[in-house]
């Protein structure tokens, strides 16, 4: 155990203060800062155009209008993001910034993880340093684990610190205040980002050990990056929602159109009273939304399985649940008669994203076992 700790500390510090890690730190800050500032500016502009800030009940969502040919997961994710972005009340606070950047982070962390690890073992084999390390009177499993954990923790810490630094900066510039709940959600999401990155570091490390040459390993890691990107893109489109599958949108009766036209001519605000045909139309819209929500829930349940072969999909799914504090269940964005009575709860969000988080952890565990097996059998 002492040897493991000693080795891990060594690998951690060596990686933490490496030039490559410094470059990743600056890159993630730059990337997030630029993206988050853009998000914040967009939100501010939308908020200003919508009028004075108001409460949560003033936010609106138009899922029908924003539905596009993509997976139900993507539609849900975008609908929730849109409600946060277009809220006059600046809902979600700094969560939206991280949420909006998640698809970018999914590929950046994939890139960073593989690039960090592609020569983790091969470089030591090429320089013969591995001879010295494997010649130490230390259990090989301890050596493999310490190398994987030490170097990965350093990268994860760097990227998480970069994310936080960028978020805090943008929050300060944009005048966003953090609530305790939002901070908790952000802090919970960072380990998920870490686990995601860890998985790819382990993939890179395994490739590095198997390839035994940094040059070969770099090419294979490049191919893995392209493959993951392609699988994600294919899945998002292959499981896309066909508009023909959707429940039919209720026709807008001429009498309802006439009512709103008259109301507009009379000038806003309109009174709470509405003629029966308008109430009927609103009721049909509710029925449509309920049908749409049922459809989306069924599709989402089925499509979630696809995310299990697409790591970026996993991360986006988790971010969809965790990085919002408006809905008890993100699918409520389409319709929920209980909205207002079911407060957004962190526990519920965690529960919703539990399958993906569990799969991610299982993936990390499996990859770790694979790496230990490879390193234990490694010959120099």
């Amino acid at each position, binding site marked *: 155990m002492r*040897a493991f700790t*000693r080795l891990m500390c*060594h690998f951690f510090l*060596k990686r933490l203060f490496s030039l490559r890690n410094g470059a990743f730190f600056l890159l993630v800050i730059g990337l997030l800062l630029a993206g988050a500032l853009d998000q914040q500016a967009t939100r501010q502009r939308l908020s200003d155009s919508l009028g004075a800030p108001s409460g949560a009940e003033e936010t609106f969502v138009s899922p029908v209008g924003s539905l596009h040919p993509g997976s139900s997961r993507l539609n849900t994710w975008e609908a929730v993001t849109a409600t946060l972005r277009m809220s006059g009340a600046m809902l979600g606070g700094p969560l939206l910034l991280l949420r909006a950047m998640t698809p970018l982070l999914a590929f950046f962390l994939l890139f960073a993880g593989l690039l960090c690890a592609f020569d983790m073992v091969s470089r*030591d084999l090429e*320089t*013969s*340093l591995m*001879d*010295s390390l*494997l*010649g*130490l*009177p*230390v*259990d090989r499993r301890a050596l493999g684990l310490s190398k994987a954990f030490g170097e990965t923790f350093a990268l994860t810490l760097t990227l998480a610190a970069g994310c936080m630094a960028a978020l805090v900066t943008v929050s300060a510039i944009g005048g966003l205040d953090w609530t305790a709940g939002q901070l908790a959600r952000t802090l919970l999401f960072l380990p998920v980002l870490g686990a995601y990155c860890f998985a790819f570091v382990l993939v890179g490390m395994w490739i590095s050990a198997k390839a035994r040459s940094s040059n070969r390993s770099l090419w294979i890691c490049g191919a893995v990056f392209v493959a993951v990107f392609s699988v994600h893109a294919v899945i998002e489109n292959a499981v896309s929602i066909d508009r023909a599958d959707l429940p039919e949108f209720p026709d807008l009766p001429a009498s309802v159109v006439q009512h709103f036209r008259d109301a507009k001519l009379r000038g806003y605000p309109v009174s709470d009273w509405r003629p029966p045909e308008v109430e009927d139309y609103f009721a049909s819209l509710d029925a449509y939304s309920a049908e749409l929500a049922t459809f989306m829930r069924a599709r989402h349940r089925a499509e979630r399985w696809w995310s299990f072969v697409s790591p970026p999909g996993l991360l986006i799914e988790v971010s969809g649940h965790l990085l919002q504090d408006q809905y008890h269940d993100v699918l409520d964005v389409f319709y929920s008669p209980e909205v207002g009575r079911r407060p957004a709860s962190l526990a519920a969000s965690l529960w919703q994203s539990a399958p993906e988080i569990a799969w991610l952890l299982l993936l990390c565990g499996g990859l770790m076992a694979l790496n230990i097996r490879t390193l234990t*059998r490694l*010959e*120099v």
Partner: protein
Amino acid sequence: MNESIIEVQGLVKRYGKLAAVDGVSFDVPASTTFGLLGPNGAGKTTIVKMLTGLAKPTSGRVRMFGHDMARRPNAIKRRFGHVYAAMAFFPALSALENLTFFGRFYDLSARRLKERIEETLRFVELWEERKKLVGAYSSGMKQRLGIAKALVHEPDLLLFDEATNGVDVEGTDDIRELMFDLRVQGKTAVVTSHRLDEIELLSDDIGILDEGKIVRQGSPQSIRDGLRGLLFKYIVDRAEPIQETWSHPPATVRYIGTANVVLSETDVHSLLVAQFGADTVSEVEPTFEEACLWILKHPEANGAPEAVGASG
């Protein structure tokens, strides 16, 4: 006979169909130096890697200090030091930091480790350079640091695998001197090299490897003695090159400026005397290098000499 520190039995290492090491067996008694000699690709480094636990034998057994390498590798690793060609260290750390890092994995107290680091760095004459980053060291300095690393935990056995490879003449001389000092101190060692002079100088016992097999084994003198009747060497004291005119090959004739050296697999003394006169021809013992080269060319040879008469 001293107790054996290393016992190797029927060691085989295969890479696919290629047998890099094919049934090698030897023992190394305490306080002796065993040299493994052979051309590149003969299997020397593979054997050392199996001795150090860096490679797993396909079959056969390695026992060191009474422990089986396959079962108790760490107990064995604590007791030997390994120096190999182009030793690698953490380039961004100083010599002192590198030795401290590696030394901590052996059972030495912090105080003893500090003392040992100073002793070994002084021994390899790097104490003045201890704070310099290893990345800035020359290859000779790195090899000397490698020796310090191998010695820091006071091992009972040292394994030198092509330790002078890639080092300049001066560095090679320094490293050989260090290895010789260790021999004088009574350390047990295994030395591999393709440099015959190095092996002859340092080893008590030598195994000559060819294509993964030990083709001859013994002390340098016994290896030379074993070639009596198989290899003949003559000096023909003539200031001009002579031509090989006799009919029974093979023999090599080398003009060295003041005399001719004749190496022959047959006794051609009478022939040379007949041709050049008795006072110019003298028979001498082949050098160790010549003997080894002949063995490597004739790994299977072990026959009686064939005398060749003068043929005019």
